[in-house]
């Protein structure tokens, strides 16, 4: 099978959908000839034209609301926000409008839109261009939240997100854009709410999201040399969350570590830890649940400080050993 980068997989998912569904279009800043801040839509305006690759003014409040209005009247817009930090400006439309319209209207009307946006640190872009704010969105009933970690997952999850009749926040991690995996040429859909076991293991379960999936897999490879078998689960979607896969894994390994880049305090890891604490898997635990997350600090510019603000492979290795009471 051919390999694609994560970035190419996102583009291909959109292009294939747009070829067969006239209602799907993209709007966002600099997504036209410029190709988007990270180049995801490069070449698309040439194929689909400026009506369907709609270059917008720098108006996150208006373009998010316009996506809501277009979705409410029958279109299936994909909104690209240049950096996920700017979701603050689109927040009212996502939280107060998109998420609530169907419920407030007593089940009438729907808002089938996808808000795609690059998140995460590691590019030296500092505090206002590096955040991981997915827990905010996961907190809001009415939204779905997707965080793919591989090219294969990105393509299939984006297809599912576009097909979904609800507003979906689709977080693309910037450092994942260049990662590659085997990606089928044909369209396929990965259901929202289905976790993926990225690596099987019997000693400890790591639930990790986005770039932390890759770091956890690195840590697992290292620990294997010492005979420690780590299971790595990528929930892929935070809402809906595949609690069953996580519970079953913890019942098998009796140990759980949750890793995400987002600030640990109030982060989604707390939700996963609580889910296990409230489940039948609690009785199987042989060690306290550990959470690894970003430090409670704005992401700094200096590259060494930036790296230190979020969990590293070494941190994950150490956490696994600690959980297993090994030095």
């Amino acid at each position, binding site marked *: 099978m051919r390999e694609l980068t994560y970035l190419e997989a996102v583009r291909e998912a959109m292009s294939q959908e747009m070829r067969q569904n006239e209602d799907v279009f993209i709007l966002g800043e600099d997504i036209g000839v410029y190709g988007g801040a990270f180049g995801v839509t490069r070449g698309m305006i040439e194929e689909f034209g400026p009506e369907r690759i709609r270059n917008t*003014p720098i108006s996150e*409040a*208006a373009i998010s*609301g*316009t996506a809501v*209005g*277009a979705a409410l009247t029958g279109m299936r817009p994909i909104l690209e926000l240049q950096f996920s930090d700017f979701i603050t400006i689109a927040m009212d439309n996502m939280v107060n409008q998109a998420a609530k319209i169907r419920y407030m209207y*007593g089940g009438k009307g729907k808002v089938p839109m996808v808000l795609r946006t690059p998140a995460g640190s590691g590019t030296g872009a500092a505090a206002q261009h590096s955040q991981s704010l997915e827990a905010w969105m996961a907190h809001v009933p009415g939204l*779905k939240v997707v965080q793919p970690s591989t090219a294969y997952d990105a393509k299939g999850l984006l297809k599912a997100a576009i097909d979904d*009749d609800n507003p979906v926040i689709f977080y693309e991690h910037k450092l994942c854009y260049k990662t590659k995996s085997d990606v089928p040429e044909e369209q396929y859909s990965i259901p929202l709410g289905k976790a993926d076991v990225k690596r099987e293991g019997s000693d400890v379960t790591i639930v990790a999201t986005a770039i932390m999936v890759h770091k956890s897999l690195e840590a697992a490879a290292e620990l294997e040399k010492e005979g420690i078998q780590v299971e790595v689960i990528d929930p892929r979607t935070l809402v809906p969350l595949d609690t069953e896969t996580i519970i079953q894994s913890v019942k098998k390994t009796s140990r759980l570590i949750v890793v995400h880049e987002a600030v640990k305090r109030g982060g989604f890891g707390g939700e996963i830890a609580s889910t296990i604490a409230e489940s039948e898997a609690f009785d199987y635990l042989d060690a306290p649940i550990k959470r690894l997350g970003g430090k409670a600090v704005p992401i700094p510019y200096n590259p060494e400080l930036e790296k230190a603000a979020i969990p590293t492979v070494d941190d994950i290795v150490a956490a696994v050993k600690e959980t297993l009471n090994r030095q």
Partner: protein
Amino acid sequence: MAQLVNLPPRVQETDLKGLLKQMWLIRYFEEKVDEFFAKGMIHGTTHLAVGQEASAVGSIAVLEGRDKITSTHRGHGHCIAKGAEVNKMMAELFGRTTGYCKGKGGSMHIADVEKGNLGANGIVGGGFSIATGAALTSKMRNEGYVVLCFFGDGASNEGSFHEAVNLASIWKLPVVFVCENNQYGMSGPVKEMMNVEDIAQRAEAYGIPGKVVDGNDVFDVMNGVGEAVERARNGEGPSIVEAKTYRWKGHSKSDAKKYRTREEEQEWRAKDPIARLRDVLVQEGLLTEEEADNIKAEAKKEIEESVEFAKDSPMPTIDDLMEDIYA
């Protein structure tokens, strides 16, 4: 009628008696709601548009059935003018399953998406970009409909106003922004909150027409909005129409109205939009006194019946709580 109000041909055929009826329906609906809040028969909050009937009815009178509206927190009048059933509206305020939102939305979220009412809105300025998005659908699918976006004087100070009007202008979208300037944003007088005389002047900043009309004169509203709607339908883009009016009641249910004088209120009561329409129709021989009284009595009866309908309707059950969050 042509010599009297100089209406465009389509508007000349308007059922002017029907407009009078709608205005009475709004008046009686609002007064009933006011009474029920005072008696504690309805909970939550509500914002009444008594005195503003002409801007709602006149604006919507020039629309075609396929056209759409977005409304505001003070939206009962818009809903009635767009053809909402008062039974379902009253039932919604009573929190019943027969209400427009099955009792889950209440006063600020009445919507009828199928019939082109994209919803009242509890967020001031929340409708600007939703209307813009609905107009984008019209344009992209060549559906030919126009969207009327109602907003208040206060909302024109929200950032969402600037972003959405600019976007609608550059994309030449078929949307008309109708400002109902009722002189106060809650307690804030327009004169203290902006340094322009007319909100319509702001249109110039977006390169679109801005027009002031007498919001208590239904014909003036029809002329102004009708022209803007025609322009929008012809693909010439958005306009702002500012209807100067006045809300007779306070902002919401608990308002001592300390920010204005009783004299000022009396001045505006003398400009009662319903009495003005009635008098013109009688003077012009389009309506007898008796017919006018009958229209008023019919409207009163319909609202009284809506109360019975609402009271006789079932309450939602706890099983309904978690329904309709996702499509």
